[in-house]
């Protein structure tokens, strides 16, 4: 029965390595989410009455804020990154909506626009922040792994 590779995992996390491809995929994802966030914000700001707006808002809430936050944490593997992004994004919006319900300060469009702005800033930062170069020692260590 295969086990999680604790040894390499430990070394990799201590050295702070990440595969080179992570940077490319991170930028592609950030670009796609920037487009999603900007479109959602634009449709909300101009109060465009279209069914597409509902589905874009759902997609934004489900993915964008969570991914923008979670990508800083460099969670792996990929499936964990994405489920964490979705779950934390949904949780964040549940808490925002719930606070608005408690306080009876019910302004979802304004709150959504604020969230879009914050998310956009984080996503733009993901786009421009420097690559995380993998540590050569870690890569060599990984190649020596007898498994």
């Amino acid at each position: 029965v295969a086990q999680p590779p604790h040894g390499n995992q430990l070394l990799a996390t201590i050295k702070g390595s990440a595969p080179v491809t992570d940077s490319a995929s991170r930028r592609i994802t950030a670009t796609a989410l920037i487009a999603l966030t900007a479109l959602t914000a634009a449709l909300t700001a101009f109060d465009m009455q279209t069914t597409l707006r509902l589905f874009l808002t759902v997609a934004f809430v489900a993915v964008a804020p969570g991914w923008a936050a979670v990508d800083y944490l460099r969670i792996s593997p990929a499936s964990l990154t994405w489920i964490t992004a979705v779950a934390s994004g949904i949780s964040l919006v549940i808490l925002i909506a719930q606070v608005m319900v408690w306080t009876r300060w019910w302004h979802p469009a304004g709150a959504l626009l604020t969230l879009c702005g914050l998310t956009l800033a984080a996503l733009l930062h993901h786009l421009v922040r420097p690559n995380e170069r993998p540590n050569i020692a870690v890569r060599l260590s990984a190649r020596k792994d007898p498994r």
Partner: protein
Amino acid sequence: MTRPEVGKKDAGELLPGEPPTPSIVDVGAAHIEFWPRLIAPALAVLAALLWLFGLHPVAPAQMGSLGLITALSPALLVAYPVLVAAVVVELTSRPPRPRLLAALTALAVLLVYGLQPASEPTARLSVAWLHTGFAHYIADNGHALQGFDARFSWPGFFSLIAFITKASGVPDATLLLQWAPVVLAGLATLGMRALAVVILGNSRAAWLATWLFLLAQWTEQDYFSPQATTYVLMLAAVAVTARYLVNPGLAAPRRPGPRGRLPPANLPRERLAAHALVVLLALALAPSHQLTPFMLAGLLLVMVLTRSLWPGWLPWVVLISALVWFSLGAKDFWQGQLQMVVGDFGNVTSSVDQGVGGRFVGDAGRTAILLVRVGITGAVALLALAGWWIRRRHGFRSWALPLLAIAPFGMVTVQSYGGEVFVRCYLFALPFAAILGAFVLERPFDIRPGAGSATDSLGKVAASWAARVAPAFACAVLSVLGLATVVARGGNDAYTSFSRSDVAATQAAYGLATPGQTISGLTSDALPLGYAQIGVVEQSTIGNNCPDFSRITTCVLTAAPDYLIVTPSQDIYGQIYYGEPPGWSGRLVTDLDASGAYRIIFRQDDSQVLAKAVAAG
């Protein structure tokens, strides 16, 4: 050519520090490997084509008490074993391709959970429509409705949907209903995949566990609901915990040592981030569902008791946040009915009676569907038990996984949960049972042709035979589970799915009713009622006060709702549960019309709205 040996971790995603998948196919061998590598994608395409070819619209009236299965084409049903064959073929290849496996899994989510949305005319399940109504109320008013329904005491999910719909400028969330199961079940499958990879590493077993989960999830708790959403959050919390806060791993071979829990092998900032994530998820869970946060706390507590979870305080944070919400936020629910909340505590007999005996009602078709569900549950339990036994034989002594699979059933001692307790127990146990069961399905993949002692030719022949037959075993198990799940999930569709005319009838009633008036159906399980006018128009069901639908005409005249909605789905419900003859609701309408107390004011196909003579003016 010598077939290269490739480690199991080539079958999945990489954890940090793992080497990327080695290139095992040299240039000379590429053309030899090319055609066999096309088998799995070809089977997947064939499965998709069969499914699309066999798909056709299904009206509720076409189904009998066995539900959707009676209206499905054989071609569509064949698609499921073909898709399972595709994934098994891919898992036997060396190395399996993670992206292809991910694509096959996404296709399976669509084929299994998208069957009803694709074939039925509107969103199914009356509760899903009702949840839209709750969110609609919050969107319009900015607060929950007190004293109306227990579910409003956990408004997190409804607030989320209200937030989204209000910010999107749409009147309600009915557009989201139909395909919600695909999205929510897909996210749960993603959560399961993450959990499996975290616990099992990048192995075939992790894929098999994901597929076991996907193909054995008959509970239908993935509709538009708080429990479906919070289930995803819970899986994420457990996966993050298992990845960053557990030491040793949940599938580690040895029990943790006696000298206390050791910090996991990662950085403090990673553990801090993981703590923050789990606390965030727990805070969102507390006001969103009455059961899930307690279940998460229980699972984390099991990890503490098995000395796996490093921060021993984490389950208590989850539990306290849930209790604080229950005490303060859900006061409206438990005030005056505390006996109902704690009345079942320790009363296992009551939970079993309601959860098993109480559900075996209805005609032979309904009973057959229930037996299919019991069969799937039993099969998964057997696989989990066998997986645990295999691991014991190989020296894996940790109790964490088996206890996590058993722990959800502790809920039976606390609550009957309205007769749904075993459904929920199975739902929460399934991820861990699937991981244990995957050990059974994975073992045959490890047998290589020609294995065995060189001097033992009989052993070599046996191993060779086993290597060829064994993937067929996994294929057969997954196929049977998948088909059984398709049968079980659609088992109630004769009355839980609705036609467009059913929705139109409800809409007509909403259009006619004035504030304070009453709209009723015959049963709450077979009508898309409650998606609008919550708190404005009273919405009820006659069946609540009319046992067995006996003397239903008298019941309607006694309850005297202003508007009564009668639909074919309710007719089928009466046939299945109370042995009413086909068309009994038509005779009810005739009787009411003849009595002069009601007259028909809307009719589309067989869906009708009757108005009380006074209400109709």
